[in-house]
């Protein structure tokens, strides 16, 4: 309850950041863009005790995460929804040889990534975290196939400046479309096309994406218990949301942000599908630290200097990983409580802190 009150006070003090949430008292878990890492409006409200300032730009946010009693996604399944990508006006350009509903290849890249991330060392970072069921710790698994399915929804019309509630409603439609019954282990990425994006992203609030968990008081009329991600067309934000942050070639790095940002949200949802919600005194949150930073937040944009230096040269910095399809995908690292001899650090990118 304290947490709910704290959330409400914090949100009221700051005002609603865009129209991301359905109510003024609720904020989803933002991934700030690289220029807004220290923007207080985008920081999660601290869980307790002494408020912690934002992390130094380009560096990890220290101290280990704790378990807050909610569920995790033990056997995750990720469902991709490309909402309105085939709708008229979704893109302002075409590219020869590319589908009209995906002229930059972003949808294909995201799909390939979700199919390829299972079983990687990067996804394996989350296997140290667990949920407690009847006194037993049940650990997150890292199966080779976490791909649930893809839906190009051109039936339900989208529009620009879509709200968080509308994204939640689309997530609910996706639950029905895919026939999902195991919501605990399922998450839905609602990806938007170039010209129809979520209002807060468009409005310059300063985030690249966010994830959340549907509850009646936050998303009225939407089925409770759906973990979903607001995934805007991050190429619209350029380098702030990761374009060419790992791969410097104009085309090679153009889509870097899509897997960096979506990977951040997917892994946060796996370890904290309840998105830090506290409902009627019950904490639905999984793993985060006492500053309320999740495993992705703590390692966001590590090593990124907008091209001045290569982020992969910094331990835990942005880097390419090899997917289970043998292809390279740029991602950020993930917080590992087990790294640095238990002190914790960002890991999984192939440029971890030296051990031994």
């Amino acid at each position: 309850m304290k947490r709910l009150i704290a959330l409400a006070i914090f949100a009221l003090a700051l005002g609603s950041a865009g129209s991301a949430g359905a109510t003024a008292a609720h904020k989803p878990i933002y991934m700030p863009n690289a220029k807004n890492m220290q923007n207080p409006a985008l920081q999660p409200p601290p869980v307790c005790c002494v408020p912690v300032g934002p992390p130094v730009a380009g560096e990890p946010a220290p101290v280990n995460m704790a378990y807050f009693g909610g569920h995790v996604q033990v056997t995750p399944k990720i469902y991709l929804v490309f909402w309105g990508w085939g709708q008229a006006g979704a893109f302002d350009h075409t590219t020869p040889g590319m589908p009209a509903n995906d002229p930059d290849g972003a949808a294909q890249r995201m799909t390939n990534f979700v199919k390829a991330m299972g079983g990687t060392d990067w996804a394996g970072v989350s296997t140290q975290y667990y949920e407690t069921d009847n006194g037993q710790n049940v650990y997150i698994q890292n199966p080779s196939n976490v791909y649930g399915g893809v839906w190009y929804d051109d039936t339900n019309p989208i529009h620009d400046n879509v709200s968080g509630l509308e994204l939640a409603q689309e997530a609910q439609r996706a639950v029905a479309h895919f026939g999902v019954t195991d919501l605990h282990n399922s998450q839905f990425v609602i990806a938007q096309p170039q010209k129809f994006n979520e209002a807060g992203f468009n409005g310059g609030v300063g985030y690249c994406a966010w994830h959340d968990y549907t509850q009646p008081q936050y998303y009225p009329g939407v089925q409770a218990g759906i973990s979903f991600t607001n995934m805007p067309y991050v190429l619209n934000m350029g380098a702030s949301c990761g374009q060419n942050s790992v791969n410097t070639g104009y085309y090679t790095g153009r889509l870097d942000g899509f897997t960096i940002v979506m990977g951040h949200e997917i892994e946060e949802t796996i370890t904290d599908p309840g998105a830090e919600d506290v409902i009627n005194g019950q904490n639905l949150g999984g793993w985060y630290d006492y500053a309320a930073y999740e495993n992705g937040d703590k390692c966001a944009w590590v090593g990124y200097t907008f091209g001045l230096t290569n982020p992969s040269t910094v331990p835990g910095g942005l880097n390419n990983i090899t997917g289970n399809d043998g292809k390279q995908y740029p991602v950020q690292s993930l917080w590992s409580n087990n790294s640095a001899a238990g002190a914790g650090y960002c890991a999984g990118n192939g440029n971890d802190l030296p051990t031994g």
Partner: protein
Amino acid sequence: MRRTSSALLLPLVAAVVLATALVAGAAASSATSVQITTPKSGSTVHLGANPYTAVAGTVSFAAATPQATRFYLRRDDCGGSNDNPHLSVVNGTDAGDGCGLVLTSVVGLGGDVDHGAFVDFPSTDGMPLAFDSGQNVTGTIDLESLAGAGTGLLEVDVSMEALDHGNGVTIGSDSESVLITPLAADYPVAFTIQPNPALAGHDLSGIDLRVHVHGPFVFSGFIGNSGKSWTDVPSYAASVNQAVQVSLDDASFSSPIPARISGSSWSVAIPTPAVGKHTLYAESTQGFDTSAPASTTFTVKK
């Protein structure tokens, strides 16, 4: 009154239908076309005597003549929000010509001014491009107004990248140096790139030319536009990737069967289908271009 309205309406509907058909025809127009000559429409095939059915026809493709496609380095603005450096096959006067810094300081002999500042010029037209890796990419980067530079060498690094089926692939790079003096105002720097042979014959969706100027004597210069800087990219007039495929009873070609092409003819043998009436479809592709489908109907008997 109602009849009059209908009479007026019908020609209007017909006109709309005709206009739609013309637009659709234009959209579907293709440089490649295909016909089926065997089996002839309405013919009969006997399953017992012919476990395989010969399918053949004719095809035409646009000539894949080797050529070079010239792209001009263009800019729309002078360092503003609409700067938009890009490559275009269309030449003209650039609003961004004659401005825009390359680098802004001088360190003198032994130093190397390099702020990591490069400029990308992605293509905005001229695509798809059927790439010919057997010839070199050439071009000229025109450097102007290197005021206060003194005398010394200036380095020009150029690299070219292709967008190949959604992936960025390096075409190649070159580094050239040019001696600059206080007296000259214009330095055309020629470059040559040996292309990546792995891209031979690929149909490219885009190219990007990255230009990076640096050196100990660089000062407030810029890359000349309005036709002064350009690159010639070896290409073919049409794609060299040509194919014919057939499909039995499925106009969507969900399980296409490739045919062998010999000149302007093509052929393939397919297992004779079950007894009954069947429709055979054929289509040709050249690069990203697909012909209108041809079809023939035949009957299989025991």
